[in-house]
């Protein structure tokens, strides 16, 4: 029987320092057979493993169609992520995945998209945006709204510049606080919603980021009569096994690792907003 808990060896083929505590690594599974079978959807995640330290769940940011490349962007917050940040090109680590239910790219076809990300929340949404823009014919207008704590936290300037050049794409940027050179807005992401020209019945909202931000967005969007089933978000819980066995990531009746990490509001409504759920 396949051991669903056992990683495969992967190699770091590129790495990039984004900010002082944020980095991206590009990985390749070293076993060609496993690499050739590896497919993922936007919003899914991998378990990355460092021997003696443990595993962490990390979203895949690369383009799902680019099947030879697995990109991750990671914030150094604790022991495992710090050590992932020390890996150099050629170093090996363990990888298993992809896991979870990603973004509803099929369900959202034919609708306008509002993609809201806060902080590093942008990581899981990057592959979503890449995908949507490549298959733009299937979607309507795309609003990309990115909020960061401080203007210095804003990375991926180039990516945003690129996205802005697409037709029917609008990019809105804001920071809770910013320095004098910050050309964009100051304040919460919800400040833009009045200016968005959306038809609630024909709109899908997708977001990821801190739960506080997501709560505000959900509330606002529901008030605008966006259907509960079309408000989507990516959740974070303690994921250890990633296959729905260890019970650590439960959120109400859901297992974040296999029923999510992307959920729509309808699914989580009974638990939404209750401390400790």
């Amino acid at each position, binding site marked *: *029987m*396949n*051991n*669903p*808990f*056992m*990683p*495969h*060896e992967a190699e770091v083929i590129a790495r990039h320092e984004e900010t002082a505590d944020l980095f991206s690594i590009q990985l390749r599974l*070293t076993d060609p057979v496993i690499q050739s079978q590896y497919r993922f959807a936007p919003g899914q995640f991998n378990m990355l*493993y460092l*021997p*003696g*330290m*443990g*595993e962490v769940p990390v979203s895949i940011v690369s383009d799902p169609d680019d099947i030879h490349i697995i990109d991750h962007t990671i914030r150094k*917050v*604790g022991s495992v*992520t710090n050590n992932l940040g020390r890996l150099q090109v*050629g*170093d*090996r*680590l*363990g990888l298993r995945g992809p896991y979870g239910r990603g973004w509803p790219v099929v369900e959202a076809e034919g609708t306008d998209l509002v993609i809201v990300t806060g902080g590093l929340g942008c990581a899981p949404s990057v592959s979503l945006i890449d995908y949507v823009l490549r298959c733009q014919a299937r979607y309507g207008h795309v609003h990309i709204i990115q909020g960061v704590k401080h203007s210095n936290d804003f990375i991926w300037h180039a990516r945003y510049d690129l996205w802005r050049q697409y037709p029917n794409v609008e990019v809105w940027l804001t920071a809770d606080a910013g320095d004098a050179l910050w050309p964009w807005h100051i304040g919460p992401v919800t400040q833009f919603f009045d200016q968005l020209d959306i038809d609630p019945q024909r709109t899908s909202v997708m977001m990821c980021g801190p739960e506080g931000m997501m709560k505000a967005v959900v509330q606002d969007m529901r008030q605008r009569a966006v259907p509960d089933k079309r408000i989507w978000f990516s959740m*974070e*819980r*303690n994921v*250890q*096994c990633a*296959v*729905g*066995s*260890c*019970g*650590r990531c*439960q959120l*109400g*009746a859901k*297992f974040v690792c*296999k029923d999510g990490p992307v959920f729509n509001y309808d699914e989580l409504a*009974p*638990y939404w907003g*209750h*401390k*400790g*759920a």
Partner: protein
Amino acid sequence: MNRQRFLPRERFQSLIDQLKAAGYDVVGPQVRDHAIVFDALTKVEQLPIGITDEQAPGRYRLEKSESRRCFDWATGAQAIKPMTFVARETLWQSERLPGGGISFHDTLTETRPVAIIGVRACDLAALSIHDHHFMRGAHPDPQYSQRRQSLFLIAVHCMRSAATCFCTATGDGPQARSGYDLVLSELDTGFILEAHTGRGLDIVLQMETEAVTAEQTEQADAGILRAARQQHRTLPAGPLQEKLVSAVEHPHWQTLNDRCLSCGNCTAVCPTCFCQTHVDEISLDGQQASHVRQWESCFNPDHSHIHGIVIRSERSHRYRQWLTHKFGTWEEQFGRSGCVGCGRCITWCPVGIDVTGELAVLCKRNEP
């Protein structure tokens, strides 16, 4: 032939012997450290003969009786969970290769076939939930599956309930209905054996047994009925998921915050709890690592830890998670409640918190 046969008490040893002869390691209940626990069994005399249990919230005492019965007690310190979902085991190992590579190895080893004598109806119901959880999903658990498949189960119908039992309320007992190879009804003079699988029948056929009389069948039925009637704890009318989820801000959780020790005993004795923690262990030279899993409980703050935050930071949140999951959201996950009515969480809670009482309070407000 009739699947039911009678085995006189004097010949009970022949069951153990037959199982051994058929290649099984035999495990059965016995008294250790003031409780009934499962352990290796070779002789009938090791069984808790003439032992009964007295259980109450936070209290478990064994008593000697005049009876010669071996199964005249209700539930022991643990169901058979420790034998299927083991408390601590290595899932896989990794090794650093010269040149920087990492190789990963499985740690599965052969398991020997094990026959367990004395499995109760509630424990079987719990086992079936675990089978669902560990074996029937998209990613079957190799460790669990292997051990599970090597089991030969000999159930016993309960003829006596402890004060903490409430399997009639969950519909899981006292009569064992499925999931076993053989089942025993214990009478004063011996046992009615009933095979439910071919291999169970093979064992029975090897033994010197007698026909079952109508009177013996009646005695067995009466015993089961007696056990059912002894139970007095009940559950609020189900399904409970909606009731509990909508009680999320009920003020009663706060009183539990004050009383609950958050020690996790209830989850550890519950035969259906499946939560785990995965930890890595490394050799002194840093070259080998083992990925180990062990039992975890939602009462531990670690359970819901993500970087920098404990999601269920207060005891009340954690008690709520336990009760809401076990009796509520379990229904959506497994199509039934996570409680099989064994009463262990009531008995083995050091301060005697009684889930049935708490549920009554929590669900009342939402009762029509």
